């Protein structure tokens, strides 16, 4: 589009207009920059804090002694502690702690498990709603819509009791299966499926392709971008989930006295890291949060397009 050509009454009017435009630009950029700095500040604290050795960080915190932030006090020792099985406090007391590698493994298993189940159920259900005709379709769809209005807390209460009575506490079953279906993803996929022209379905029918064959060979390949978005958002959801794992997987240690394997996920692991021995472990906790956040950033850099598209439609987090 061509730029507007502006005509002014005289030079003075032009000068005033230019000054106003520049002033506006300055205000806009100043406002945006201040807020951008506010947005970035926690990340800056996180990156810098995670590299400063615990002793130096504690000295800095106690006295605001900036010399302790220098590069000579930087190192990877915080990260080493995060992934270690033991931790020695400043006063020389050594105690066992779970390694973050363990939380990572748990989270990967849960993320892959629940994402697989969610995607399979969503693809199949969305196919039925988008393409097939059956009695009760509208009723069922309205029911699904209605559940989105109900706060999740109501479901959590009974699901927690179900978990107790099935003796599923501290098992992967509780962490994976309870989130085996997502109404939102069914809606999202159904929308994409509905955009696929009818002619393809009829053509496939003429060729003798079954409904399932059509879903797998035509619809899924066409809807792959949406499915990718769902895969990524669901993985991120598992990575960030805190409430449910906190209720059903609450053992702290890798091997607790009763021999039960700890089922904590990364968020819960981070919360429980040094909960009781918190003094002097601040920089190690920062390293822990860095370890939890870094993979998310990596995913964001790689799949920015998919994430932003999915998010602008959903508004779900974690």
């Amino acid at each position: 589009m061509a730029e507007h050509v502006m005509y002014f009454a005289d030079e003075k009017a032009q000068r005033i207009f230019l000054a106003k435009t520049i002033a506006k630009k300055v205000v806009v950029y100043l406002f945006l920059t201040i807020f951008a700095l506010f947005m970035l500040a926690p990340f800056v604290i996180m990156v810098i804090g995670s590299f400063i050795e615990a002793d130096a960080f504690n000295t800095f915190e106690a006295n605001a002694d900036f010399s302790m932030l220098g590069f000579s006090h930087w190192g990877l020792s915080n990260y080493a502690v995060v992934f270690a099985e033991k931790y020695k406090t400043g006063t020389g007391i050594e105690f066992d702690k779970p390694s973050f590698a363990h939380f990572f493994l748990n989270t990967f298993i849960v993320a892959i498990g629940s994402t697989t189940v969610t995607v399979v159920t969503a693809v199949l259900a969305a196919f039925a709603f988008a393409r097939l005709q059956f009695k009760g379709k509208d009723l069922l769809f309205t029911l699904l819509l209605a559940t989105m209005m109900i706060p999740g807390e109501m479901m959590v209460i009974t699901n927690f009791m179900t978990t107790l009575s099935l003796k599923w506490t501290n098992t992967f079953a509780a962490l994976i299966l309870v989130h085996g279906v997502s109404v939102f993803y069914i809606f999202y996929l159904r929308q994409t499926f509905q955009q696929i022209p009818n002619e393809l379905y009829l053509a496939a029918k003429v060729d003798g392709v079954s409904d399932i064959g059509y879903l797998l060979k035509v619809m899924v390949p066409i809807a792959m971008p949406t499915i990718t978005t769902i895969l990524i958002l669901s993985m991120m959801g598992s990575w960030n989930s805190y409430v449910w794992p906190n209720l059903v997987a609450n053992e702290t240690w890798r091997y607790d006295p009763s021999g039960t394997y700890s089922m904590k996920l990364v968020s819960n692991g981070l919360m429980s890291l040094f909960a009781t021995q918190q003094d002097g472990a601040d920089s190690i906790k920062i390293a822990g949060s860095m370890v939890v956040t870094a993979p998310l950033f990596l995913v964001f850099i790689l799949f920015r397009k998919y994430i932003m598209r999915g998010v602008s439609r959903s508004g779900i987090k974690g």
Partner: protein
Amino acid sequence: MALFKKERKVAEAPMPSGDVLVADEVKVVGPLISKRRRVSLPQWATAWIVLIPALIFLVMFMFYPIINTFLYAFLQDFTYVPGGGSFALGQFISAMSQTCKSSYGSCTIVYPSFGFNNFAELFVEGSVFPKTILNTAELVIIEVPLTIIISLLIATFLNSIKALKGLYQTIFFLPYVTNTIALGLIFNMAFSRTPGGLVNIVLKNLFNVDPINWLSKDISPYNGAASRFTQGIVIVVYSIWNGIAFKILVFMSGLATIDKQYYDAAKIDGSSSFTIWRRITLPLLSPQILYITITSFIGAFKMYTGVMAVYQGVSADGYYFGGDDGTTWMPVVGWIYKRLASDSLKPGISSAGSLVLLAIIMVITAAQFAVSKKRVHY
């Protein structure tokens, strides 16, 4: 695609070598297709078959829990009977069939019944529940308008610039792809009790304010525990940081759909930027603003992890929200989960609490739809 390959194979099939086409051989083309055709189910049957996996999960972990939590809420004097399953009515029956097995003379069994006792217990003298509703309402009323206004401003400004737009957009989106707990920990450190907390350093150097105890209990070097007010500031600052990314994204996509002609027309009429924003941008963005307002009010009323995260490190169980008893800023959802986890054999009272939350959310949503009928331009 495999589908079309099959077609080609049929076409390329070698013709019979003889000069006369034998009727049998021509037929081959016909049956070749129908032979490949599997016994096809009627559509409704296929539909229900593909719905089965989703339905199993939906019924077990969504439909059933919603109904069952209703039942729990009205089942009073009830203690979970191990081995009785989670179904409220099943539990009711097994609780009613309890018999006295005690050999120590007299024993009393309290039999459950249906009634409103659980709700009454939420509001008895000394119950924390009413306080958590007020806490939540207070935070919602401060936080939601603030985040909406800030994100609206940022979105408008972002939309008006060209240089560095992409960079700013990415920066403002970053909080969305982070972990609430991890960044809550960082905010906790930034508002640290020690002089080395970032916020205290900034305040000291710019305004010469003495270090403030933002979050902690009464510990050196301060005299006095953190006040409810300063704790509230930290919570609101974190929720702004955490909450504007999504809103900016929605407003930006709304702004992108507004036709540029309106702006050109207004400029020709000599309207000021503010008038243009007030008279064109705002009305045309009203569907997005309504959507964001409703979802943020609902989302904010369910706040929990964001509040808990800034108190990080004080307590590992996730139910500490400031003060000596951990309830200074306890939100409703925090109370529900704490109640459920600490008294897991009596889900009735936390269920009643969740029903109250549901009622509040319904009222807010209905009120906003009523208001929006007059205000929103579609």
